[in-house]
């Protein structure tokens, strides 16, 4: 838990990432619930209310700089221990930010808009095979409001393919 007052840049990016994801989810029209600061008990930073009765979990990582085509994160033991319990789709999102903190948000006073110099990329992390050692996101998989709609479709596909929606049209 952070104390009061200005925090180091690592802490700021740890806050910024889930909030950026939350903004995109909000734009898509879905509820976003971020885990309280420093309380990602299950190695997830937030969840999307993807369907009435169902929330899907999202792990968010924030990266300062620009990666070329892919970015990999080794799967920590704690992640695997928590995610072994996954019974629904879950996602990993990497938020990319400029190295220079002052340019994360650009406030245009004349036009009265704000530009977030951020982008995000996603990968699905379920099921997580034992032999998988890392999670990789690709620049081709940009995280936008349309992604959240895709996640909803993936959840319904998951429910259908596992026989969990009896009335579903296949």
């Amino acid at each position, binding site marked *: 838990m952070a104390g009061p007052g200005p925090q180091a840049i690592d802490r700021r990016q740890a806050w910024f990432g889930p909030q950026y994801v939350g903004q995109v989810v909000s734009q898509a029209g879905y509820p976003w*619930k971020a885990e309280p600061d420093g309380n990602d008990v*299950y190695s997830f930073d937030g*969840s999307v209310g993807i369907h*009435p*009765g*169902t929330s899907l979990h999202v792990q968010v990582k924030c990266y300062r700089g620009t990666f070329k085509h892919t970015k990999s994160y080794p799967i920590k033991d704690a992640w695997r221990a928590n995610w072994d319990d996954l*019974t629904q789709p879950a996602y990993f999102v990497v938020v990319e930010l400029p190295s220079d903190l002052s340019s994360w948000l650009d406030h245009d006073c004349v036009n009265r808009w704000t530009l977030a110099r951020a982008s995000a990329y996603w990968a699905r992390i379920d099921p997580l095979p034992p032999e998988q050692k890392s999670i990789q996101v690709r620049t081709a998989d940009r995280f936008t409001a349309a992604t959240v709609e895709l996640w909803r479709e993936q959840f319904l596909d998951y429910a259908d393919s*596992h026989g969990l*929606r009896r009335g579903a049209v296949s």
Partner: protein
Amino acid sequence: MINAYSAATSYLLSHGWDEEAITERAGSWTKRDALTIVPFTLEPGSLSWAQFLEGVAGVQRITIADLEREILGARAQATPGPTTDRIELDLHLSGPGVRTHETEARRFGLFVAATADVVTELIKDAYHLARHPNRLQVVGGPGEGSVRIQFREPVPVVDEPLFDYPSATVEGQALHRLAQIFNTADQAAARPTDSLLDAQVILDPGARRALARVARLMSGGGWSADGFLTRPNDRPLAVGLSLAGAHRLRLSTEDAEEKIRTITHHGLMDGWTWSLGEMRFNTDAGKSVRAAVPAGLQLTVAALNSNPDQRVTASFQVLERVGPKGTESTQHALISITPDALLPVDGG
């Protein structure tokens, strides 16, 4: 100990959710357009638990903390009362249908009547009787607990037909059978795909109908039942039936889409559980079989099981419950069991 899947689905049942589907790993539940997936491995404190609470709390419009408290605190903690010289089924009803030791009188009365009918029907089933008088007693007076109800076997009459069973009355035996069925249904609520409930309720239509009626009344009353079967000169047998268990009991006694075939195995006894009326058996072909045992064979099975080297020949009904996506479960019910002749001991 509370089973989280059973507790969670009991909550859902009492708040207007319907069971949508059951798979090998999870059940899915719907309420209007809402859908929640409940894995059988659900455990408080786990990721699945957090995910379940979050999804359902949003639909029920309550906080996650209140939802968790309501789910985990729903069942009564019963302790066995003193043993009398007669068999008693001592149940504490709790759940959303009970508030400060009060519940709806009319439905409660129907539940008492339906339980008495089940006992009579179980007797008729076990002893192939066309009719049997309704003699089950109910014990009045104040008692601790949520809403407490004690069913007691009648005082034995002199010419009572004595069966090979540690009770003087058939009602006492039927109360024991009912306790086994309740426990099996409760276990089925915890793990619907790993249950012998269908096999336990291969009964005469009258007994199935009576059980279905009790299950419906419990579901409608919003009651879970927890308590003990107390027997003279024996330890109390814990009995429990959650709302989710009552739901499973209703499905098993009402649904009839089953394929039944008969099979005979030779092998060795591998266990017997009084609280569930369930035996385990290892066939000569190397297969392990769990089977429901009808009342009339339970003492025989218990006796055969007491000899670890006892070879037997056992015939089973094999039930295959057929769902919309094919076979959903396969269960065994014992039909007959005979000890194989012991090999002569070579005395040298």
